[in-house]
């Protein structure tokens, strides 16, 4: 396979709060190839949004990228290494701030935010904002930019774009505003668009329209997408490949069909179980038990073992990396030691629930961790 458009390698983002260090993103790696739509799925607080913000280096204090490397189109957007004194520092390969702003943000990578109600400046007209972005990123004159803005509005399905050009954001409905944001992202013809839960705030009929629109536009422009969502339905609808995140780590990485039909990680399975499926009739949904632990104090061993129905004793001590567990191209990776690819004593280890019933002291063995 050719070189990926975007390569995220062992990215670590931490937030230095008063209560301690929050490891929001803890060593994730994924690729996005040209023309691909890659999903990033997980519960709230899994670190999805932080991960995509880090791609554009939009993490703000007290947050910091403390490790890893992000490469875009052969250029290093950020590379952080740990110095001899233990402090992370940006290597010389890291792109300077000014260059990143001028060449990458908006021009090469655009981002669509979650809330269409909040992502447009209320004091300027929609057309004016769109025009400003185009002028800024494509070196157009004001008139050319205006024409381009109107044609972009038409492209994303805003009726009477000429008339709507001078309207303020509050005069648009949620779905219409999201279309405007998509127009804004597409207007600068970026090679990659990061969509951070763009349809979460919309109702399902509008969501479906937006997804259709995105697929349609993607076919036409060949833009790559990173699509952040917590909705498995959306994933099935539009993604080519999927990364499932749990507590700052990627637990499963697979082409979309494999993820749904040959689920390899218990967390993904639990996620799929907790949403209604048209092909199965169930009495009651089966949500994942408990809540996600705090990223400030993650559980030892596998981070999902506290909620995992298949957890065994060995899971409390080993935190598995994401390894290839299936055949095929693109590869199917999962971070669960129940698979043969991991040389861990999973099958010999007693199940956690059973261990508790038999009176074993779980905490004793949980004391020694490799974390």
């Amino acid at each position: 396979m050719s070189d990926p458009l975007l390569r995220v390698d062992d990215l670590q983002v931490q937030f230095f709060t008063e209560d301690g260090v929050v490891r929001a993103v803890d060593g994730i790696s994924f690729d996005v190839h040209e023309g691909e739509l890659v999903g990033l799925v997980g519960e709230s607080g899994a670190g999805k949004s932080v991960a995509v913000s880090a791609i554009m280096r939009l993490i703000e204090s007290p947050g910091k990228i403390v490790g890893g490397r992000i490469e875009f189109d052969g250029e290093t957007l950020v590379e952080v290494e740990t110095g001899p004194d233990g402090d992370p520092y940006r290597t010389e390969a890291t792109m300077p701030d000014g260059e990143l702003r001028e060449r990458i943000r908006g021009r090469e990578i655009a981002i669509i935010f979650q809330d269409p109600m909040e992502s447009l400046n209320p004091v300027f007209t929609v057309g004016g904002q769109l025009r400003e972005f185009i002028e800024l990123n494509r070196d157009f004159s004001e008139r050319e930019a205006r024409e381009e803005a109107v044609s972009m509005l038409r492209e994303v399905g805003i009726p009477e774009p000429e008339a709507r050009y001078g309207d303020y954001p509050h005069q648009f409905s949620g779905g219409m505003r999201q279309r405007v944001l998509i127009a804004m992202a597409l207007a600068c013809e970026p090679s990659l668009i990061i969509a951070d839960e763009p349809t979460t705030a919309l109702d399902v009929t509008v969501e479906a329209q937006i997804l259709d629109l995105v697929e349609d536009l993607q076919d036409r422009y060949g833009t790559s997408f990173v699509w952040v969502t917590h909705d498995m339905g959306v994933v099935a609808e539009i993604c080519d490949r999927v990364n499932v995140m749990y507590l700052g780590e990627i637990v499963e990485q697979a082409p979309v069909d494999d993820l749904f039909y040959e689920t390899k990680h218990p967390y993904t399975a639990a996620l799929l179980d907790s949403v209604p499926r048209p092909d199965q009739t169930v009495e009651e949904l089966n949500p994942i038990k408990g809540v996600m632990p705090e990223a400030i104090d993650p559980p030892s061993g596998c981070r999902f073992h506290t909620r995992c129905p298949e957890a065994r004793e060995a899971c409390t001590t080993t935190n598995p990396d994401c390894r290839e567990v299936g055949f095929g191209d693109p590869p199917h990776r999962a971070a669960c030691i129940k698979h043969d690819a991991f040389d861990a004593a999973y099958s010999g280890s007693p199940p956690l629930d059973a261990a508790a019933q038999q009176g074993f002291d779980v905490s004793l063995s949980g004391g020694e961790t490799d974390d």
Partner: protein
Amino acid sequence: MATTHSDSETLGGESVEDFDESEQSVEARVGWRYTLSQVREDPTAFGGFLVIVAAAVVAVVTTIDAVVFEFLAQYQVFAQFGVEKYWLAKTVWMSPVQESADTTALLPPVGIENAYGQGTWAHPLGTDDRGRDILLRLIYGTRIAIMVGVLATAIGLVGGMVVGAVSGYYGGWVDDVLMRLAETLYAIPFLVLVLAFIAAFGRSITFAMIGVGVASIPKFARLIRSRVVSVREDEYVEAAKAAGVRDRNIILRHVIPNSFAPVLVQATLQVGTAIIIIAGLSFLGFGIQPPTPSWGQMLSVSRDHMIADPWFSIWPGLCILVTVVAFNMFGDGLRDALDPRLDN
């Protein structure tokens, strides 16, 4: 929901014009036209607005008469037509800075009699201690009050906006340094600060004005910072950052416009305060210098005649009062119109 737009084009069943009316009434409070229509519905605010407009018109006309004509009189082309300082006033009536040939000093207003004689319609509000017409001098004093009040506020506003926006947007040590400086200025009494400024740079209306402007920077800076701190977290700011907009443009185009409403209200009220301060400085002799007419300096001169001829001090005092109250009423109305939480 509005049904009048039912003929408008729809897409996928979604009506384009289909936005919530109540939501609009809250969020539409950003347009000038809307704000002014709100102010018009408020009689006190609208009254204040009318007084301000009237004073501004008077100020513009008298500025042309006093400053522009003085400038033009230097050139032969205009001078041969008789253009000179106070041309308009002299043509219509009399000079505001020179004694009229046929009057006595301290003549009372119409209908009142005092030791110097009977008030006449030639001088409806009476004459001052040098026989100059008080009404005319009040009219020409408006120029100083409005101009100085507005300019001093503008200096404070622009300075405060820069300091506050930078401080709030960047945070961290920049914020700490700028805000501690602002608080240091804030700790010194306003008038003392202005007097110190005049003492350092010279006794003139220009420095008095700049002094008042500089002294009001902390007030604006703190106000705008408090707004910027919340606005900078808004998603459109992050969206702009993600689109590669420079910090300077983010501050100018996204942060400041969205933080501006309370500052506008404060500025309107501040004009009133600045007028009082400048009048006070003129009263103390630090502001405008004679013979240029100004309300504060007229008040100052009238001190010696306050018991015998109280009208001499009443008129300029009344002018200051009316103007300042007008700015305050307008500012209050503006606050009501711009505050989205007050639904009137």
